[in-house]
């Protein structure tokens, strides 16, 4: 019953926090703060990732790869805007990102051959094509997602979920053979709403501090199933004790609790991200990565613009994206955490050059633009290009595997690593991935 040691000895919260954090291996919240001050981690082992998923496949024309010279019927209705870098222009509806271009790179030349949502989702969120063809509407997983792999490789610490997904998991965002431990911790709900809380990480609002203390004491005194202390017995009840210790560390950690509470953010900052669900999720993602969550995925759906693409994109989709992402990049830079935070923003493919009869664009996997910043990625850089009409990526063409290899490398994970399925089959994390070298200069 060694778990009962220290239990009733009157340690107060502050002591508990210090003991807990000091006793932990790996990085702790205090380390995080120290790192934040120092600003840089060299081997990627402490780089966190904010993965912004534009589900449906955003048009490259209307975002980062406008083609003002293309003929009518391809060019689209939008004008362009100058960016911080002379000669580079974005869609006119991304004015804030154009100004903040010094904080990120745009890769305009990722291309692949999985032209439907089911397969494209799988390819761009796991780095692997599906082994058999799947349909457009398919929700499939054949390989662990980026977030699950990062959770698996980094391990859990401080009681923090290691892979958070808001407000839902993307189709192929699951852990596959890595098991439920590495499935995403889904935070649903709208952080812009009143009374929003990150689920499960804090004591319920209706429970007072004193009552929470009573409960904790009761649990410690009443959890009497005898533990098997012989390590060889591999008693799962012993791991449970470890989880409760971590859980209490989290619940009583001021830093962690502050991070979960988006209301602590100054109103000015909240406004800068946009007072909407997406903007506030990005802000929450920043707060979560700061406290040590290694991978946060922000799902933003609705980019499958087969109809009325110009009307819908300019009305809400692009303004929200522009304001939120620009604020995130600028904020990270100002806080000195850009160097240990990788931010990527993409969907499953680009969209067709020709505007269709419904004023929409259809799926087009032969060219897509990916925004990537932080973690040492140069600002103000365009990588690769599509042809003058935007049909095909034709300069420095990269594949989703290369994107995956780059992401893993930035996070200090060997992308060529072999994982083993429960059957023992060796599976390479990324097959024949080459780093996108321009992201590593």
């Amino acid at each position, binding site marked *: 019953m060694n778990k009962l040691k220290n239990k009733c000895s009157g340690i107060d919260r502050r002591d508990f926090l210090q003991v807990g954090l000091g006793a932990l291996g790996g990085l702790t919240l205090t380390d995080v703060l120290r790192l934040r001050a120092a600003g840089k981690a060299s081997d990627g082992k402490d780089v966190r990732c904010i993965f912004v998923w534009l589900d449906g496949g955003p048009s490259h024309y209307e975002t980062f790869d406008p083609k003002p010279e293309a003929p009518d019927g391809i060019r689209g209705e939008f004008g362009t805007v100058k960016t911080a870098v002379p000669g580079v222009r974005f869609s006119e509806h991304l004015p804030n990102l154009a100004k903040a271009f010094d904080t990120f790179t745009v890769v305009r030349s990722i291309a692949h051959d999985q032209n439907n949502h089911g397969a494209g989702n799988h390819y761009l969120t796991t780095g692997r094509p599906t082994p058999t063809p799947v*349909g457009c*509407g*398919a*929700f*499939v*997983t*054949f390989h662990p997602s980026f977030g699950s792999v990062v959770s698996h490789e980094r391990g859990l610490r401080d*009681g923090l979920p290691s892979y958070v997904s808001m407000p839902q998991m993307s*189709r*192929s965002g*699951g*852990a*596959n*053979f890595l098991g*439920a*431990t590495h*499935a995403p*911790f*889904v935070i649903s709900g709208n952080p812009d709403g009143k009374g929003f809380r990150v*689920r*499960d*990480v*804090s*004591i*319920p*609002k*209706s429970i007072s501090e*004193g*009552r929470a203390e*009573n*409960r904790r004491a*009761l*649990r410690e005194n*009443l*959890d*009497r*199933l*005898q*533990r*098997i202390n*012989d390590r*060889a*017995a*591999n008693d*799962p*009840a012993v791991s*449970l*004790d470890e*989880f*409760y210790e*971590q*859980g209490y560390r989290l*619940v009583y950690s001021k830093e962690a609790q502050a991070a979960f509470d988006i209301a602590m953010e100054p109103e000015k900052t909240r406004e800068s991200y946009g007072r909407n669900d997406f903007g506030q999720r990005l802000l929450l993602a920043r707060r979560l990565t700061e406290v040590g969550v290694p991978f946060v995925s922000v799902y933003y759906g609705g980019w499958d613009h087969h109809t009325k693409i110009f009307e819908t994109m300019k009305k809400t989709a692009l303004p929200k994206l522009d304001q939120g992402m620009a604020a995130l990049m600028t904020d990270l830079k100002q806080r000195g955490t850009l160097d240990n935070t990788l931010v990527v923003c993409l969907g499953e493919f680009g969209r067709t050059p020709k505007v269709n009869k419904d004023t929409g664009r259809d799926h087009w996997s032969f060219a897509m633009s990916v925004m990537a910043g932080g973690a040492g990625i140069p600002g103000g850089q365009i990588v690769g290009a599509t042809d003058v009409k935007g049909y095909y990526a034709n300069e420095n063409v990269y594949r989703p595997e290369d994107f995956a290899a780059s992401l893993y490398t930035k996070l200090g994970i060997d992308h060529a690593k*072999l994982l083993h399925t*429960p*059957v023992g089959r*060796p599976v*390479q994390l990324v*097959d*024949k991935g080459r780093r996108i070298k321009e992201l590593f200069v």
Partner: protein
Amino acid sequence: MRRNLSIYLLFALSVAGGAADLSFRNDVLPILARAGCAAGSCHAKAGGQNGFQLSIFAYDPASDYREIVHGARGRRVFPAAPDESLLLLKATQSMDHEGGRRIEPGSDFHRVLREWIAQGLPWAATNEVSLTRIEVSPGTGRYGRGAELELKVTAHYSDDSTRDVTRLAEYRSNDEAMAIVDHDGRVTLGGQSGEGVIIVRYMDQVGNARVTVPGERRLPDSAYAGLPIRNEIDKLVYARHRELGLLASGECSDSEFLRRASLDAVGKLPTPEVARDYLLDFSADKRAKLIDELLADPDWADHWAVKFGDLIRPNTQRVGVKPVYLLDGWLRRRLRENVPYDALVKELLTASGSTHQYGPVAFFRDKREPATAGAFVSRIFLGVRLDCAQCHHHPSEKWGQDDYYRFAAFFGSMKRKGQGISAPISGEPEYWWWEPGGTVRHPVTDEVMPPRPLDGVAVEIPTEKDPRSVLIDWMLTPDNPFFAKAIVNRVWGEFFGVGIVEPVDDFRESNPPSNDTLLDWLARDFVENGYDLKHLMRRILRSNVYGLSSMPNETNAADRRNNARSLRRRLPAEVMADAVASFTGTPEKWDGLPPGARAVQTWNTRMSSTFLDTFGRPDFSAECPCERDPAPTIVQSLHLMNSDELQSRLSAADGRAAALAAGDAGPEEIVRQIYLAAYARPPTVDELRVASGAFSGDGVSRQGAIEDIMWALINSAEFVFNH
């Protein structure tokens, strides 16, 4: 390295004399395999490595030959100047090679490869022989802890010649704690007793050596004399314990048995009333009565439908909602009727009709190709993982591509009509039926593969006969080596937390059962009793070993495979959700299910539930069969500690806490009731004192105290685990 050099020296000498006639298949490929060139992580991975691709485990020699001789515009081999061949330069790292030096310059391997190139790259020797089998010696043996032994591997060829291939074979231990093996077949046994297997692979042949380490400290017969024997299971388990020096732990308490058996058999916590009655029943046969009641409980079917559903229920996003709903309904109905297991499987595998009218057809809609259907049937119903052999020879077992495609051929003449898969809706019906015509071909040789059962002889099937019925007939022969064993092992695994063969669907010679006489007996008993699942469960539940304590004694703490104590298991997602709902008195509301429905009645994994997702329900995107991760996780603990949902269950106006608070029972009586509901036992004197103390805190309401105690119990190991 030294002991087999002689063969190679002899060989090389004859090569130098120009007499030997080399063969790509028998002389060159083995060297490439042994040097690691054809490893799954190197040139044999999908797509090869740097443009050079070999087949994994050399399953396709003709393609390997083409790749070496004609690939890369012929730069890999130069018969006119063998030493300039890329194959040699890279392998010896005389030229930059990412894989490093695989072959020492001047070694026997090097000389053989060089000579083969110089001979003009012969595909076959003049009198080409084929490898028929390998022999590993010693094949079995009993050894002491820490013993060392050397294996010898002999290849046998079609002309009855043999060759010592010890230095060319690959070795792997199935359990590193039992034995480790080096590159050259030298085995060192570990420090524990039990059975280990060394898997030996040479080209497309697999053999193995079994090593048995008897318990060092055998216990005297008297140690076993007093152990209760309730049925044959106990005798067979104890017999194994004797061999291994294990002794069963003592029996668990009545409360533990009641809770354990209820959770395992019907997925429910016993109600306080049931618990009280059981504990106050002093009749000798109360356990047997309880077991009969559990097996007759109408909820039995739903609990087992979740388990079978994990195996056969397709992704609704793939085959459509209606087919899955119908399949689920069919499964639950058949389980409620307790149809014999053989009839259940037969009905599923021989189904025809509309996916929108008859549930089992969903299986064919999902496993659309003969190969996927075959691999699935083999794994789920025969416990044999043939999947590997789709692309290459199974790495640790005898199964090859022939076996795979010949088994698939039983499904080779299925016909379909209709729209097919159009995810995510797949809304239109599809019709599946059997009709003569249609074949399965070998992907490498393109030969037509006549149907052949596993380990069986090819069967002649008259054209007017559905091959599926022939397959079923074979599966249902009473002495079928796979069918009954696979299911009894699965069921055993559900009740004990570990199969007799583990993983439960991975039967192979190189993964032996922990107790083969027990497995044989269970399978025979199951068949003799009409494939009755409830009969099997009754046998298990009535055994003494099912009712052992989970606390170890000095012999069995480290043992997980031999049922010498009960293993603690986290409640599975649906059972846990239902346990929390029943304990708090707040039934869950499920979309599309009637009020009061339980989590074990949810029929697809897309039905929204944070609780079920947190506790490891399969990912709805996954293609089943779905493995569940049984481990407890931090996220689960956080959910039980902090979730608003749990708090609202505790404080619900119509929940258990409110009812207890509104009643006139005193604190001690309330605590007693809570303990019965959570743990199926009364509190100890000390627990009663501590828990009742919750009522007397400052500013604590009566209901608040009850909620707090209930919260504490839900968050305890005794609740979360079946123990």
